[in-house]
């Protein structure tokens, strides 16, 4: 497990941590992908996870995904909360038998010694009603802090996962704060040449919090939501489910922004979530439908 352990005394910078994870998972056979070029709430939304979790074909990938949570914005004043942060996402389908060991190897690769730090797998099941998805797994604790969500997907888009994919979601800033021993996210060293996380992102957090909470034009957002919804349906009718799914991602983020602007009442909230869910599920269904004949031919005995 300790084959690629980071043995240097100096803790890794944020960027070196990402590079170490890339090197580690790349060597384990994962494609190293780049972030998806759309605004989304979590790495799971990336089509490389959501859509690729569907169907029988093997798929192993790792990537960083910038994640946007408008309501978590704190104008750069909270040391732990950000409206934009990074998730490191690994998906392996089918889940390999040694996924836990592989994961622990990745912790060693970024400098966590499991005989100095208490690593624990604590029950935490995952569910995303928006994606019609759920899975069983754990939150992984390092000295009492949750550093990773570890999930065996059981359903995606309302479909049973056949086969099951294993998903790892690392909270990069948290992990980096832990490794570097800093209490404020903005104090993280981004590289080894004097640039901090705050140098890169503090102003972004201030301005984007202001825009998310105060400036964003709600009528434009509502209009955007309706357009994304219409476009998604159009794309599904045209048989291009990947394009439809992009519109579902768009609608989901616009809904999050509307939430941050405080213009969606409790009653409306459920209805908007239902609309986003319908788009995401519809896209997954479209994706399944499109490839079903090909998959059934290639994987005898497989059924959606």
């Amino acid at each position: 497990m300790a084959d690629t352990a980071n043995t240097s005394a100096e803790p890794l910078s944020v960027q070196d941590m990402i590079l170490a994870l890339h090197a580690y998972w790349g060597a384990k056979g994962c494609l190293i992908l780049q972030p998806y070029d759309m605004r989304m709430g979590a790495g799971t939304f990336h089509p490389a996870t959501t859509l690729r979790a569907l169907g029988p074909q093997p798929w192993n990938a790792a990537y960083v995904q910038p994640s946007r949570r408008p309501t978590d914005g704190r104008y750069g004043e909270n040391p732990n909360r950000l409206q934009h942060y990074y998730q490191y996402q690994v998906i392996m389908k089918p889940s390999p038998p040694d996924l836990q060991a592989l994961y622990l190897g990745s912790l060693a690769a970024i400098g966590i010694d499991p005989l100095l730090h208490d690593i624990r797998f604590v029950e935490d099941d995952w569910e995303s009603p928006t994606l019609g998805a759920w899975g069983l797994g754990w939150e992984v604790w390092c000295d009492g802090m949750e550093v990773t969500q570890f999930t065996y997907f059981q359903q995606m888009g309302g479909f049973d996962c056949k086969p099951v994919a294993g998903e790892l979601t690392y909270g990069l800033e948290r992990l980096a704060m832990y490794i570097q021993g800093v209490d404020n996210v903005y104090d993280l060293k981004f590289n080894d040449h004097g640039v901090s996380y705050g140098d890169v992102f503090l102003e972004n957090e201030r301005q984007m919090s202001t825009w998310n909470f105060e400036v964003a034009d709600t009528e434009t957002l509502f209009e955007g939501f309706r357009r994304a919804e219409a476009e998604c349906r159009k794309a599904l009718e045209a048989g291009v489910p990947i394009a439809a799914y992009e519109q579902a991602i768009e609608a989901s983020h616009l809904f999050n922004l509307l939430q941050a602007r405080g213009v969606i009442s409790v009653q409306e909230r459920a209805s908007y979530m239902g609309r986003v869910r319908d788009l995401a599920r519809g896209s997954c269904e479209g994706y399944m439908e499109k490839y079903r004949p090909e998959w059934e031919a290639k994987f005898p005995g497989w059924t959606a």
Partner: protein
Amino acid sequence: MGSEVPGVDGMSTADFLLELRSEEIPARMQAGARADLEKLFRREMEAAGLAVGALTIWSTPRRLTLIARGLPLATEAVREETKGPRTSAPEQALEGFLRKTGLAKDQLTERDGVWFAVVEKPGRAAADVLAEAIPAIIRAFPWPKSQRWGAASLQPDSLRWVRPLSGIVALLGGEVVPCEIGGIHSGRTTMGHRFHHSGEIVIDDVDDYAAKLREAHVIVDHATREAIVREGARKAAADAGLVLVEDEGLVIENAGLTEWPVPLLGRFDEAFLEVPPEVIQLTARVNQKYFICRDSAGQLANAFVCTANIAAHDGGAMIVAGNRKVLAARLSDARFFWEQDKKTSLAAQAEKLARITFHEKLGTVADKVARVAKLAEWLAAEGVVPGCDPAQARLAAELCKADLVTEMVGEFPELQGLMGGYYARAEGLPDAVADAIRDHYKPVGQGDDVPTAPVTVAVALADKLDTLAGFFAIDEKPTGSKDPFALRRAALGVIQILLAGKVRCNLTAVLRNAIASVFASVLDRAVAGDVNFAIYIEKIGKLQPHPALPTDEFTARIADFTAELGDFEIKLEPYSELALDFLRTAPAVVANTPAALVAFFADRLKVQQREAGVRHDLIDAVFALGNEDDLVRLLARVHALQAFVGTEDGVNLIAGYKRAANILKKEEYAPLAADYEPEPAEAALGASLDAAEPRAEAAVAAEDFTAAMAALASLRAPIDAFFESVTVNDADPAKRAGRLGLLDRFRAAVHKVADFSRIEG
């Protein structure tokens, strides 16, 4: 038809070890899994005919282990003998028997002129039985949640387990029991601690299993790990001069999260101690699974005990430092909530309750609070709760749910009530009000504290009575095992409070008020929230929202109103539709529901009093009078009755009563003036009744139920003598009618105390 003949005796035995290894099993499921493993194993063995003695079952996060000592090496051979027709019977009978048994004639045995079919079933090797049983147990395992995994999950029917199953050790007498499930083959190798050991461990047999695992830093016996956590946490606290706050739930959970538990003590910033101690304890417990400690003065100390799963190289210094940081982040959130919440008064918070739905037919939490406030004030003003200031009762009730919208209770729902109490005190409200806010949910179970402070009693009663009245009014009563609104618990709470505080009230009247209040509140809301509805009501001019507690008059007005609703044409908002439906049923519900609720209380009282040894039939006997709904007095009556029916007088009086009641049931009679010479026993009974009736009545009025029973006891000898010497069914209709009248008087006298027909035995 068949009989079993035992096979060879003196079977030799061996010890069996089964270990099912998996990725981390949730701590909360391990105890259930142990019980299920034992149950399934016993079931499989019993089905196969293998006798099982005591079992040892262990669990860790990564394995479930079963040890069966002295398992027979084979099942017993079974000889089944089926009796057939006589040898002299017709050919058809024999043919039928052969068909039934599937045997040929030369396979039958003849004994004493009768055919027998004898089938010998040889014993099966235990190893074969186990090889079949292990996959069957795994497949049938009832995990609360299970999953599929890996390449095999391409197929829909692939194996399910709580988390991926990774290995099976199955050894009988040191030999591998070969079996396979989901691509996993049984063997003799297992794994040690995830970090303290690498490589496989080879198990020889049952006896070296636990020891070899211990060498590999796995304590496989959960009870041992629990003891280590329990003792270790205690010691860690003691070494720091502190006292651990014991928490057996945490002991079990931490033992379920570790294979090599190491309790470690850490400190947090003293400044956090300004946050209420319950908050710190809950944060530490729920989010982090830490124990907390007290100092020698009993105050919460700035220390926690976490349980690591490793014996760290540095003695745990880095682990403690990491956990301290996580706890600090949690506590600063909690302190933020605490300070944030204190900036808003409870009264201002309470306004936000109008946004939370209590139940779609019963309005918002704010609506409920308004009802509870009225009822609490009324209970105080009417003197039902003695010594209670009505204004304080109202104020406490108005604020009692305000903490539901605070940040802290949003984060920790289990702190509801408690936080309200803290915030009330922080804003300078009287202690009686703060205490009532804090404790008004109590009692939440049989073992919980029962409030006795007057203001608390008023609010706690009003809250529960409103819940009961509301859900009964909309016909959401508990059925069977379903009680989604916890109404049984609410009724039990009311009973406990009334009895503990000797709170006197006529439950029916109180419930009628509560129910009418529910209707008034629904109407208020409909009028306030719906323009059309308001216009209509104005047009009709019959109903106004009711500021005062509604009365029967209100019910009558609702009846008039609903009668005029007819085919109301204006399009109503959805809420008003609901309100209208509800109001249409109001008169019937207000009329019938109190009785249904009192019956519900009677049932709860019987359950509650069973433990105290109070007979349920005696509770029925007093409830059946229909005029006793003051639970305190009712129970005093039942106690006196129970003492009485245990005496000789009581037993005989019941017998006399039943005889009288039976005769009266059978015979019809019209009361006639008794112009005949009564027999002595008849006259004596009449005289006794003349004396006993006023005595019993006066005693009941004075609530001296022992004296009431004594008055009844005075009737025992006369009624016995009456039945002894007087013929009721006399040929003279005047005598018959007179005597039946006497018996009727006797029955009525008894009924002044209790309905003896309900008494069993």
